[in-house]
């Protein structure tokens, strides 16, 4: 009897294996009328809502959204597949990452007049000028989030600490052990925070500030997610990251809020681009146009990305992320200078290696 059971199990295993192979087999019929492959670093629920909306607008198409593990993993994958591109669209990554992908020749050139005829070349907002597309149309910005200070209101109140309003407030020794940060050596958003600070405070000022902040840091975490999870729970009351993630936690009911520091909040612009050699170019262009359209922008706002089009309000929650609101409430926005970033990269790495190896 056991023998029969084992035979049955063995047969099931074989069937399951075949199913697994069939399901996971690389796309053979790509390039047909209706299949679009998108590599996206966006959170799963956002990606799903985009997929459903686009498929509804273009009946007969299937969108496969794949997240290989973040924008860096996407670039690595695109480079590995360069001679036989599997994806049509690269969606959701920082502009900095799109610049790298463009330099590596992984992005196709398009005509902005065709893809984004009604968008300006740049968005002027809160004293900053955010380029909305590359002149050769290799990437288009569809949303942004701001690098802010996030905090847990309840915990700060418990500890009797004031809410920090400026970056320089974080040097206050009262915050000792109450701040968590990730590592610029590994995280591009952490690195961008440093570059933005450099732009705000200058070469001397930034290290004076950071020597003081370093003393207040509870620990440097290798996990970017911890920046948000620890603050959400109140374990460590303060961290710096992108506003989007704090809003997500706030919507879950955590006592989390953000501060747009007076000296400036740096802007994290997210882009989309068509992969060089994409098998379904036409559908890819339609997808990019969709992401930039008012409907696509509402999806972005619903998932806590600031839209780049004026007059967009989220329909899924009550947080106002519109361009107009940002213009009226955020004191200053800083656009990270990528040339400067390259210049100071080594110094930042060196200093942080020192900070993080205590």
């Amino acid at each position, binding site marked *: 009897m*056991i*023998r029969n*059971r*084992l035979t049955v*199990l*063995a047969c099931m*295993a074989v069937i*399951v*294996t075949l*199913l*697994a*192979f069939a*399901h*996971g*087999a*690389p796309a053979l019929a790509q390039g047909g009328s209706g299949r679009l492959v998108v*590599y996206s670093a966006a959170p799963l629920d956002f990606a799903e809502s985009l997929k459903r909306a686009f498929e509804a607008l273009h009946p007969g198409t299937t969108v*496969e959204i*794949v*997240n*290989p*593990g*973040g924008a*860096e*993993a996407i*670039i690595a994958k695109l480079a*590995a597949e360069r001679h036989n591109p599997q994806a049509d669209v690269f969606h959701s990554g920082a502009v900095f990452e799109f610049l790298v992908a463009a330099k590596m020749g992984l992005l196709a050139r398009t005509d902005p007049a065709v893809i984004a005829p009604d968008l300006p070349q740049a968005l002027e907002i809160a004293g900053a000028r955010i380029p909305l597309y590359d002149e050769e149309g290799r990437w288009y910005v569809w949303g942004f989030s701001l690098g802010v200070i996030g905090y*847990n209101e*309840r*915990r700060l109140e418990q500890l009797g600490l004031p809410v920090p309003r400026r970056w320089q407030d974080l040097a206050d020794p009262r915050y000792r052990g109450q701040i968590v940060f990730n590592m610029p050596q*590994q995280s*591009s958003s952490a690195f961008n925070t440093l570059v933005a600070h450099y732009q705000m405070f200058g070469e001397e000022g930034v290290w004076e500030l950071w020597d003081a902040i370093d003393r207040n840091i*509870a*620990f*440097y*975490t*290798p*996990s*970017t*997610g*911890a920046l*948000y*999870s*620890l*603050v*959400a*729970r*109140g*374990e*460590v009351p303060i961290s710096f990251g992108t506003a989007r993630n704090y809003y997500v*936690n706030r919507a*879950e*009911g*955590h*006592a989390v809020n953000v501060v747009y520091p007076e000296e400036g909040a740096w802007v994290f612009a997210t882009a989309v681009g068509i992969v060089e050699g994409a098998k379904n170019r036409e559908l890819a262009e339609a997808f990019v146009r969709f992401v930039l359209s008012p409907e696509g922008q509402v999806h972005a706002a619903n998932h806590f990305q600031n839209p780049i089009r004026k007059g967009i309000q989220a329909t899924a929650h009550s947080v106002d992320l519109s361009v107009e609101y940002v213009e009226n409430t955020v004191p200053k926005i800083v656009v990270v200078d990528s040339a400067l970033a390259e210049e100071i990269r080594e110094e930042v790495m*060196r200093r942080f*290696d020192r900070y*993080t*190896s*205590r």
Partner: protein
Amino acid sequence: MTGTRAAEPASGSWLARIVRPPDPMAVLGLLAAVYLAVFLLIPLGLIVAQSVQIVLAGGLADLPQFGQRFVLLTRNSLVLAGLVTVIVLAIGIPLAVFFVKAVPYRPLFQVLLTIPLLSPPFIGSFATILLFGRVGVITQLLRAAGLPTFELYGLPGIAITHVIHTLPLAVLTLAAGLRTVPRDLEESAISLGGSLTQVARRVVLPYIAPYIWMSALLVFLASFGDVGAPLLVGGNYRVLTVEAYTAFIRFNVDQRIPILLSAWIVVISLCLLYLVRRQMKKTEIAPAFSGEIYTYASPAARRVGLCFCSLVSFLVLLPYLAILVASFGTVWGAGLLPDAFTLRHYQALAGSLEPLRNSLILAGTAAPLAVLLSVVIGNAMREWGRAGALFDYVTLLPFVVSGVVIGIGLIHLTGRLRLLGLALPFLSGPSLLVAAYSIRRLPYPMRVMSAAYSRIDRRLEEASYSLGASRARTFWRVTLPQLYPAMAAALVIAFTRIITELGTTLVVYQPGWTTISMQIFSYAQEGLVNRAAAISVLLIAVVAALTGLASYNRLR
């Protein structure tokens, strides 16, 4: 593990025996060897070779901070693993003794102590944050009572998580050892005037020394190779595995770093394996399998046993209780309980069951593959003499080496093969994951099958040969049926270990094939602890149900 050779006319070397006439079992054995080579030895070898290349090319001079960090990382990893091992043995040895010899309701404790094994190890981390974090439940209670509290993030947090997860592993191994101690041995010692504790210390423990060494090795390597707990709750405490993993996934980090770190992890693990196995051989006493063991019948002993087992079980299961509560709660901020209770996390779960489906498919494919491999390799080990002994070492490798490193090796191998234009279908997609899992968790079914093979009655096989049956027919008709119960047990163990794996999965991740452990991990990392908790409860329930089903079938 070299059993006695079957009574057959020796016909020269093992190679000669394979070349003519073709013996199906030998062919399968060769295939298994090739499989191991492709998915284990070559990837690891690649890493070691690449790192040697880097060092010879003066790479170390290029990475100036590396040397310092390197020493720190090694020290941290070894200290952590050492600490965890010492604690686990200190608790585990008495626990195992009580568990085997002096506890009422043993099946209950068996179930309770197995629960941590049914879940991915890092679940313990975010549960310990719920309990011992800065605003954790226990921390708040301690603070309210005016007692001292401790900072969880760092060595304490990782150690607590690892102790909880590896204690059952150690206890099960030690219990298996304790069951081989012949009754008369202890009885005579006691009749000579020794007290129970004296006899336990001076007679029983030395007798099971190989099992103690084995438990120590298992616990040490499990702690040394883990990546989930240090990532979630490690604070500033840097360990080798996390550095290798985070360096690997960031393309803007010099890729020589994860290679060097991975190679170093392999070297340390191999040295440990060699040293411990030498120690095990030195302390080995020929197991006289008596069947009956000595139990402590006195009520006092049983009371102590019950108290101790209950206390340890409670402490070990407390984090899981916290997870259960969290799964039904809303925000669990600065209070002893969540703000409110809700079913919405489970409702949300109903809408995203794809990772569970993926995990079931992957584990359902990889587990039988692993068991099949162990059956074939187990047979090869007892038939192939010296070459078979090599298998013994190789099949322990995946346990010894961290999952992250195996993953990195596989990715490098597939990358190289693609460069050579060999984009073979089984080297990508879910097949790669299945192969990786079957290798990574091979040691578990392997151990079960080795034990089973050692209990095979050779005389039946000899009788079969003398009646004219070929080797293949004998294996199929005589040997295999004797192995079926063990194969069923091996299948269950392989399945549970595979479905809870994280390290290799994070590295070898295939798009569209998110596993349930990855899902839990990403939610835990993003701070959506309640959702992570709900999925964890689901995973534990599913695995417990499948395990229970399998045991029930076996008992019938």
